[in-house]
């Protein structure tokens, strides 16, 4: 089994390298979009607390839709292919981003926030100089979680005609080629683990000065 898989990788290296690149592209674009959108929404609902319940409710609801059916829903709007995959993955990744940004900011000590504004910081200054830096460990934990999830989930995107390593898995299943399925899965797992390690390093750095 292992020999077969390794053999397949050697033999069809180009094919897999292509899929790997596509997979990375789809995942990274989604991750980037949801970091931007998630941070924005998270910051907004932590500044306007009244809206947080509704927004969190909506985001939580979207998260409960099975990924396969979300991909299906989107086909009438954005057709098949990479675009739909990116939209679906970004929407999914939104929950951990929004939640962690919100919780991270909400957990900054109110005493520190009061001191920061009591000394004459405007809302924006307090946000960028104090709240966000102190919320950073929680936010990076959210990014880490979300990145791993997105890379794994991107495997399903091949079902609606998007590229990526899911193509190998899908083809392996339909042609009863076990080695192909295993290799696709293995590479996705490898990507996820690597992403986890890299972001973990960044996370450690944000924790460095939080020992109070």
């Amino acid at each position: 089994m292992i020999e077969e898989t390794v053999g397949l990788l050697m033999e069809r290296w180009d094919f897999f390298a292509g899929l790997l690149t596509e997979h990375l592209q789809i995942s990274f674009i989604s991750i980037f979009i949801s970091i931007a959108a998630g941070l924005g929404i998270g910051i907004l609902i932590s500044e306007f607390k009244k809206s947080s319940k509704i927004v969190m409710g909506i985001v939580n609801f979207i998260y409960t839709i099975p990924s396969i059916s979300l991909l299906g829903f989107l086909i009438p709007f954005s057709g098949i292919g990479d675009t739909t995959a990116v939209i679906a993955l970004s929407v999914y990744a939104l929950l951990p981003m929004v939640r962690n940004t919100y919780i991270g900011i909400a957990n900054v000590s109110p005493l520190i926030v009061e001191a920061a504004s009591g000394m004459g910081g405007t809302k924006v200054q307090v946000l960028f100089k104090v709240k966000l830096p102190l919320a950073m460990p929680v936010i990076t934990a959210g990014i880490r979680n979300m990145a791993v999830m997105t890379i794994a989930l991107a495997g399903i995107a091949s079902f609606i005609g998007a590229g990526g390593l899911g193509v190998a898995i899908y083809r392996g299943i339909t042609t009863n080629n076990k080695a192909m399925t295993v290799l696709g899965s293995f590479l996705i797992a490898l990507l996820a683990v690597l992403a986890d390690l890299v972001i973990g390093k960044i996370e450690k750095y944000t924790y460095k000065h939080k020992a109070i």
Partner: protein
Amino acid sequence: MTDSKIIRYENISMVYSDSQVISDINFEVKKGEFVTVIGSSGCGKTTLLKMANGLIIPTSGNVIVNGKNTRQTDLTSLRRSIGYCVQGSVLFPHMTVAKNIAYVPNLLNKRDRKKIDAAVDKWMNIVGLEFSMKERYPYQLSGGQQQRVGIARSLAVSPEILLMDEPFGSVDEITRGMLQDEIIRIHEQTGITILFVTHDINEAMRLGTKVLVMDRGCVKQYDSPDAVRKNPADEFVEKLLFRSVK
């Protein structure tokens, strides 16, 4: 003369949902005075202090700071002209000592690095912090050092008024004595107006040029420490004084 009265509390009342925290307080602070506010916990002294920089707006009455009513003025610029120093380690944990002290100057004008560095050096010197500590983080400092950084931070733009809320509450007796000497010296050197909240009667009597005694949201007595000692206004003040070292 409105000029010499730098802070005025006019008919201040404060009501939270249905409990009255402060009822009809009137008093004035003259420029250059060191007013200590003393009273039991929950008597409204912190609330009173936070009214001076607009963190709390009274339910009724007006607080006039430097001729500006906190109800109408731009609070951000008012706060930048008032030093604010709070109990415990409310230093920003993610900033170094130098960055902490430079917080307010940085809010004002980021570009003038030289001026900011000079201000940091000046105030580290005055509060007795060694320059080698500049790059340290708050968690690497002792309680006393943290307080010094807090004081330096609140003074960094040389404000006219300094508000202090039990700033020495969490340090040991010896360090507290040193910090008290320090703040007296700073007051004498700079002629700054200080409003200082404490629950320690000894501290209040020692530091203040005037002492404001509060009980359950009312002012019991507002006078010089000597006058308070000689003629306590009522039983409450007397009881407070009884605990002080004569």
